[in-house]
């Protein structure tokens, strides 16, 4: 089962170290393979790797696509998209 959703980075500082670590931790709770894709370039990274997420250098306003592949894909994409929309649960950090 696959699922995907487009999200926009809202944090003032972009997808920096702490949001990347928080996202990787949140993604690790799902069995599905999680991929984050930078919409403009197609650059794709493993959503469960904090280091790979930093390689996106996603500034505020960047459009990303969250993709999941696995038996909990739909729940994963829904939860992770909300997490990004909620500024990774860390306000303006």
């Amino acid at each position: 089962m696959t699922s995907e959703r487009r999200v926009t980075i809202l944090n003032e500082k972009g997808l920096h170290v702490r949001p990347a670590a928080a996202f990787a931790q949140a993604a690790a709770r799902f069995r599905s393979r999680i991929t984050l894709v930078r919409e403009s370039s197609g650059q794709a990274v493993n959503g469960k790797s904090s280091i790979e997420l930093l390689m996106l250098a996603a500034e505020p306003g960047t459009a990303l696509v969250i993709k999941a592949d696995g038996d909990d894909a739909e729940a994963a994409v829904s939860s992770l998209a909300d997490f990004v929309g909620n500024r990774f649960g860390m306000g303006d950090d």
Partner: protein
Amino acid sequence: MKLTDVIVKKAIVPALKAKDKKGVVAELVAAMKKAYPDERFSVGELTDAIMEREVVGSTGLHGGVAIPHAHLAGMKDLRGAFGRSAHPVDFKSVDGEPTHLFFLLAAPESKKQGYLEALKIVSTAIKGTHFCKFLRAAKTAKDIEDVLRETEEIARV
């Protein structure tokens, strides 16, 4: 932007003495203070700023690497330091594993874009084949600087 522009040789600590998280941060900030005499921050001020941010969330990432950092109004430019520890340090990392390699960054409030670019350079290097292995094997600060520089050359190809 190049890794060796952000982390100069004087800001490389091949064998950290500190055993705990705050000690490692303070030791690297002290190295940074010596390496960039133009910057007027105090060691205590920058250490506190970084540790305050660590409470919000640890910068200990996967694979034994941490990227502690802070934005500080008084900084003139984006500055970095690198430290290596022979003993494991509990950095409260994402994967719960101990940390050995530390990339510390400090940036002026105005340089948010440059900061993301620096993170991209560091993370891309870390994901590169053998980068962390070479960093662990390097003997001196000069050897570590060579590893950082070689990564830049590979990245340009």
